[in-house]
């Protein structure tokens, strides 16, 4: 049995506390009125911060001269100012949402990996099943928090999802056309179904997994195999729809067919990385004696392979849109390349070039600290990936990586660590009666 080390527990509480404070600062310092918002932007101009804004200002002046009609300009300015206010108000919300989704997505990615291992009857991984079950436990609190954020968005506490604003939809033919799918009630019902299905599979599979240890036949194992196969079908459909709902609908005018797989690759690789890191941590503390370097090697191969799969999807999406350059699609990347150049390309380097070069060598994949270091870079890279998906649609060019963002990571990171390691104490770390456990113990590459 694993005992939660006190230092880790206290560390996770401190992270949660600090994170909450940072998030609170973010919410308090968000502007409440248009005047405040303008003052904030002006102040940041003085810092020499928004180099890009000078152009914007010039553009406005030019517009005034050309139009001449002051009434129109006032209206335009007012709507522009309100837009700015909404962006600045969105910032703490978006920081909260990115972090909440990122850690939830890790747990969901691990759940998918776990189901794959069970459905494929993999012989090497049963030793790691309890670690995976520990990580997927976070799906319950993490999923509920994401759901609450979505409910608050529907209740107009923020302006993250434009299509939730009835007035905007009234003036937008495109959004009216999508209202059959993108309407608040159906949106929440769908989210509840996705989360309900995932949480049900997680809890039921865990129950069967624990029952298998106590039973004297393999009926629980067989049941778990069937449920895992069924879950994978459910998961592939719901994960795709979830990515349209929770991420793509932030840019409701834009659409991409492979977006669901792209988000899937991101969560899958983050999940596998976290499995490897937690397994290495537990092993270093002497809790997973039978896990050897070959298991870590296999996980590192998955990290390497899925990183490249992620890049393949990222590039396939980018290149098709860049090549055809159809205005209604390309705005998505124009916004990212203009205002998010640094996070956009940093993410690419961290998620592709870094693991490509570091995890290519077979020997390096067996060096534990090497896998952990690469894992940290990969996780930061995939945080940036979610950041790049959410931020341009919610805060636009007003993004900044500051207190609310760090607070989000700290809070959800702390909660994740606390919840996962707390679950790990609930059951023995090595399954007893899994039919493949002996093969897994002997696994050697």
């Amino acid at each position: 049995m694993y005992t939660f080390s006190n230092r880790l527990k206290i560390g996770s509480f401190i992270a949660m506390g600090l994170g909450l404070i940072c998030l609170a600062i973010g919410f308090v310092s968000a502007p409440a009125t248009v005047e405040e918002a303008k003052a904030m932007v002006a102040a940041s101009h003085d810092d020499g911060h928004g180099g890009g804004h000078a152009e914007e200002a010039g553009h406005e002046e030019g517009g005034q001269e050309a139009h001449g009609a002051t009434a129109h300009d006032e209206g335009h300015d007012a709507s522009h100012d309100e837009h700015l206010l909404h962006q600045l108000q969105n910032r703490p919300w978006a920081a909260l949402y990115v972090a909440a989704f990122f850690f939830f997505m890790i747990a969901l990615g691990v759940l998918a990996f776990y189901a794959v291992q069970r459905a494929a009857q993999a012989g090497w991984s049963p030793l790691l099943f309890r670690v995976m079950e520990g990580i997927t436990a976070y799906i319950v609190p993490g999923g509920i928090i994401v759901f609450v954020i979505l409910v608050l968005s529907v209740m107009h506490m923020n302006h993250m999802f434009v299509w939730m604003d009835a007035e905007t939809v009234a003036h937008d033919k495109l959004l009216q056309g999508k209202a059959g799918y993108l309407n608040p009630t159906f949106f929440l019902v769908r989210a509840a179904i996705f989360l309900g299905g995932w949480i049900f599979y997680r809890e039921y599979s865990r129950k069967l997994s624990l029952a298998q240890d106590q039973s004297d036949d393999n009926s629980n194992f067989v049941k778990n195999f069937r449920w895992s196969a069924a879950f994978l079908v459910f998961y592939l459909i719901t994960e795709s729809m979830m990515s349209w709902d929770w991420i793509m609908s932030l840019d409701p005018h834009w659409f991409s067919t492979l977006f669901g797989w792209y988000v899937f690759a991101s969560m899958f690789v983050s999940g596998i990385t976290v499995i490897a890191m937690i397994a290495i941590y537990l092993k270093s503390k002497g809790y997973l004696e039978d896990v050897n370097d070959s298991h870590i090697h296999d996980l590192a191969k998955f990290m390497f392979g899925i990183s490249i799969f992620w890049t393949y999807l990222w590039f396939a999406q980018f290149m098709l849109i860049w090549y055809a350059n159809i205005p209604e699609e390309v705005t998505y990347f124009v916004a990212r390349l203009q205002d998010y150049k640094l996070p956009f390309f940093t993410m690419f380097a961290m998620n592709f070039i870094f693991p490509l070069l570091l995890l290519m060598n077979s020997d390096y994949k067996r060096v534990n600290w090497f896998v952990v270091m690469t894992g940290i870079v990969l996780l930061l890279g995939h945080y940036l990936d979610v950041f790049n998906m959410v931020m341009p649609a919610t805060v636009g060019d007003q993004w900044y990586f500051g207190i609310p963002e760090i607070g989000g990571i700290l809070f959800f990171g702390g909660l994740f660590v606390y919840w996962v390691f707390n679950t790990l104490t609930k059951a023995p770390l090595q399954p007893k009666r899994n039919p493949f456990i002996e093969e897994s113990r002997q696994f050697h590459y």
Partner: protein
Amino acid sequence: MASKVIQALYNDDDVLMHAVKKVRAAHHHIEEVYTPFPVHGLDKAMGLEHTRIAITSFMYGCLGLTVAIVMMNYIMIDDWPQDIGGKPSFSYMENMPAFVPIMFEMTVFFAAHLMVITFYLRSRMWPFKKAENPDKRTTDDHFLMEIGVHDNEKELADLLWETGAVEINVTEKES
């Protein structure tokens, strides 16, 4: 290489593995082992060095990537930068996404083909090459271990019979 060799035949890969370990423990140099299929762990038991073919493959891949970049840069950017459907041919970076499929394929092409050719050269395999097969049965169901003889034929034979050999021959090595 000794001109006279002793050849021990086995009919089980497990027995062969133990025999290899025993012979190595007795400090005899195993010149060659012939098997009908890859025996997992045999290279380790024989103490063979790791292959470096993956490293050559990586270098060939880098070469392929360089060839693709230099070629596309020369053709599309330097030599005749035409406007083809509005694609920006001003610099390589600006039009790079369009070249990535070629860069990728060339990397894989060079890495794969040059590695295979390296493998053929290093293992001396080519069409019309005379098969180096001491006993036809080693292509079907027998395993053969070959050890050089240096005036110790009797001692070697005794050792090999002990390891479970089914047949032992002493022959003059050709070439």
